[in-house]
């Protein structure tokens, strides 16, 4: 087998954003990656907070919590929640479609063609609607709970 040349069409991280005409699903993929990296960053901070600060006893914990109840941290927490909702639901859509569900029936290729992207588009729209509703529910709770 001929050895593949991996860097022939290499675009690097710039290619995540633009490499020709991307459709909606491709931008969802980009957002999936960004939210994933953001949640990883939060996970590291969260683990430091719940291990290093918690083991030092009640006073350190309460001082940390007082700092984290600052409105800016609350906004950050809300963004992490929204990122999790997006990453989870988009991930479930990707898993279902990778395993062959929610793709629509195969049809004979008679003009006008119905490509796979257009058949699964309704599922994508439904997913975005559910994400928006859940994000609003969380937003309501963050407002009611006070920043």
């Amino acid at each position, binding site marked *: 087998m001929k050895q593949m040349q991996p860097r022939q069409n290499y675009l690097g991280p710039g290619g995540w954003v633009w490499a020709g005409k991307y459709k909606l699903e491709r931008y969802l993929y980009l957002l999936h990656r960004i939210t994933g990296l953001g949640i*990883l960053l939060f*996970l590291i901070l969260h683990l430091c907070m719940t*291990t290093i600060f918690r*083991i030092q006893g009640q006073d350190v914990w309460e001082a940390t919590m007082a700092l984290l109840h600052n409105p800016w941290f609350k906004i950050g927490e809300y963004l992490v929640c929204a990122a999790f909702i997006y990453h*989870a639901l988009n991930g479930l859509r990707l*898993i279902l479609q990778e395993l062959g569900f929610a793709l629509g029936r195969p049809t004979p290729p008679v003009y006008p063609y119905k490509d796979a992207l257009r058949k699964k588009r309704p599922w994508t729209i439904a997913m975005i609607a559910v994400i928006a509703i859940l994000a609003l529910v969380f937003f309501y709770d963050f407002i009611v709970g006070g920043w």
Partner: protein
Amino acid sequence: MRNTYLRLMQLVTGILIAVLLAIHIVIMHLNAILGFFGVDVTEPTSWESMIGRASQAIWVGLYIALLAVVLYHALNGLRGIILELTPSARTKRIATWVIIAFGIIAFIGGSYVPLALLIS
């Protein structure tokens, strides 16, 4: 072949995280809406509430399981992104081992603290 299994595990851990982390986030943040449905959650970040959860084996087990699957999913995802940038074989090897070492350290640290609090 090896990466195929890592990828399959990524799907399985993804589904597990969607369930476990949803429980975690709803308990930690949706106290107004849980209160509407009759579940009383009093300030989950206070020391008393945290120690209350940390002294129950079921919560500790749930959190350590969540920690394991989250660390796998996050670090395998990060490794996937790094490998997609087509680094050299040497960089790939170094990145893989750094990620494995970080994961083991984070898992030991993150499971030692709740276990120590549970025992004490």
